[in-house]
């Protein structure tokens, strides 16, 4: 290599398209439009993201795959169908994400750990089936490109289910009872936009340890910076 093509973050929005989403699907589509608008205003940030939109019900539809949103005039619209089978969504991701990472690397990109934004308004209709494929998807031993999953539950989705889907407790968002579902979706889309635009650096754990005690030789060089 000489210069790399840069760094990209593959982002997957995985949205529930079950019938019960009917009342809020317009708001979700509006949230995606504002995400798109925000990225068009920040082309340098947009250049570092490849965006896929996946809808699931009892089957799964890829509405857009690894899109560079700078080149899209509009985002595909989500719709509603029947069923809430989490397993079909995770199966698709398990198939898709490693292949996507390989494809991006062939184009010369260095690839950040993919981020999945998972939104559901219901309990899974495939209890007992989705868990094993989910386990494989997020296991970094078996799936080196295992994504971070940010999960948002609205409506009937239970907190414990959303916590299970999120790869870290702080990645789980459950709409508080009484909050208007449209508002929860707007907040989810705002969080999605922010994290997509700020996809850059985070403090990462490795074997380095926090300095927890004042070294004997320490002297404060300056009071004000």
């Amino acid at each position, binding site marked *: 290599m000489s210069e790399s093509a840069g760094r990209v973050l593959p982002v997957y929005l995985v949205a529930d398209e079950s019938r019960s989403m009917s009342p809020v699907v317009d708001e979700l589509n509006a949230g995606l439009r504002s995400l798109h608008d925000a990225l068009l205003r920040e082309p*340098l940030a947009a250049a570092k993201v490849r965006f896929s939109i996946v809808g699931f019900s009892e089957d799964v539809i890829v509405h857009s795959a690894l899109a560079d949103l700078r080149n899209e005039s509009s985002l595909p619209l989500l719709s509603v169908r029947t069923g809430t089978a989490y397993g079909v969504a995770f199966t698709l991701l398990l198939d898709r994400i490693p292949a996507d990472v390989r494809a991006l690397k062939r184009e010369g990109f260095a690839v950040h750990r993919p981020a999945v934004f998972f939104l559901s308004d219901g309990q899974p209709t495939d209890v007992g089936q989705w868990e094993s494929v989910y386990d494989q998807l997020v296991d970094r031993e078996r799936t080196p490109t295992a994504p971070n999953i940010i999960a948002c539950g609205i409506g009937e989705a239970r907190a414990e289910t959303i916590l299970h889907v999120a790869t870290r407790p702080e990645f789980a968002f459950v709409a508080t009872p009484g909050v208007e579902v449209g508002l929860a979706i707007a907040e989810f889309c705002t969080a999605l936009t922010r994290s997509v635009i700020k996809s850059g650096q*985070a403090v990462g754990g490795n074997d*380095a340890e*926090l300095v927890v005690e*004042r070294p004997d*030789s*320490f*002297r*404060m060089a300056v009071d004000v*910076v």
Partner: protein
Amino acid sequence: MSESFDWASPSVGEAAPASPVLAPATQPYRPDTVIDGWAAEGFEVRAASVRGAGHRASGEPRQDELAVATHEGSLIAVVADGVSNAPLSHLGATMVCRTVVDYLQHAEAEIDWHDLLRCAGWSLVEFAARQSGGEPDPQRAEAQLASTVVVALIRPAEPGRAVAHLVRVGDSDAWRLRDGKWTPLFESLTQPEDELLPDGVSALPRVPSSVTPVEVPLSTGDVLVLGTDGFAEPLGDGGGEVGRLFGDGLADPPPLARLAWMLDFTGGPYDDDRTVLAIWPT
């Protein structure tokens, strides 16, 4: 004055979209660009730190920082990069640079490199405690002020020769440049077979459990270059446009403003703050 010089930033790769340049919403004052350079017995130095297009567009301050100083005939060079997710990391980067210089100016001839990095890390912990008026809290210091660092201490040997010792925490980097060829001085943090980029950057106030400095002999014709990842990433292995631009531009110490001009290159996906500190043994 020559009429022919084009002051527009050099462009590399695909043209970048125009993006706004907003004032950084921060106190105290923090300039977009820092330029420095001078000559001392045995060394010539040039340095620049430039806010990237990303922070210019978002109205955030430059989170990179540098410091360079002399001490008893040696040269101390420091480059730091505040971690984006830490909101006051620009102050963290400054704190780290100044602490490292102060430490090395007061150190014995035999440097305890691990202690140096621990003190630089601890400066963030104390600074965070002063800001909040609370007890020292390393976690809070990390969340607010985390910063990478690369440190070089260059001691002159015979005329035209010097020996550099370098340590780092995080992805700021260093190279020896000779005849346009870039030799990285630290082991790469990524391997070609890695599927993904590392999940995050290690940064002060975290310090590796053991620290061994890299020792590099320098002679006339060599340039020691320190840089943040905003420079390291577009440089890659040095074989591309950025490598040629700086390989030519740093063959000899350039006029002060010229390094900053080069470093303000636009194009491709490169929008991070970038800092370069170059040292020529003389």
